[in-house]
């Protein structure tokens, strides 16, 4: 069971990964905000959370039946 801040972190990562190139800087900013919140809430470091939850991101995508990545340009 995921806490809300992990849902938000995965959602921010999904948006960053699959957005168009022109949106990347803003999506990256929002991802950093979500990661900072997760660090604050969990007490773990950003790199620890990123490494530990990489597989959970894949599971989260499957559970939400999110579409596969569109072709994104730089």
């Amino acid at each position, binding site marked *: 069971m995921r806490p809300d801040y992990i849902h938000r972190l995965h959602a921010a990562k999904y948006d960053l990964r699959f957005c168009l190139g022109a949106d990347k800087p803003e999506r*990256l900013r929002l991802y950093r905000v979500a990661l900072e919140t997760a660090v604050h809430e969990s007490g773990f470091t950003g790199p620890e959370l990123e490494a530990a939850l*990489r597989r959970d991101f894949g599971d989260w995508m499957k559970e939400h039946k999110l579409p596969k990545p569109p072709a994104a340009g730089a």
Partner: protein
Amino acid sequence: MPAYAVGVNAVQQTFSDESITQEEWAWVNDLIEEVRRETERDAFTRQLFQWDLAVKQFRKLEMKRMFQRQPTPTDLHYHGMCLHALLAIGHALVIDSRKSQAPELKYFNIHHEHIEAYVEELEMSLREWHHGFTEERLDEVRNKVLSSAA
């Protein structure tokens, strides 16, 4: 025409020819410089688009091999190798995009912040998959975080 007048004319002609010659060389030199700049810009734009294409293909394979199934040691090896290669080119493109401000980038509405964000995203993947944490530590983090909502 007196003899001294012929001499003066000859000197003037020499100066005039010298001036024209310098202007001609300068013009050709400017032309070469412009060709060089255009070649650099073309090379930069071409490399940027090829890199972007490579990143897209990398992400597709990463999704298939790393997220949709358990990656094998071979997957992890190639994933790391490709990431490092993409990052090396990406960092060079960020530096070039800062100094060139190529008109082609403006034409395609690309700013160096976009390229920086792409590179940062690749750095993120490096932190996720190729780090120094032990599996025990990652299990501990996962267990505590994912059970905290219950």
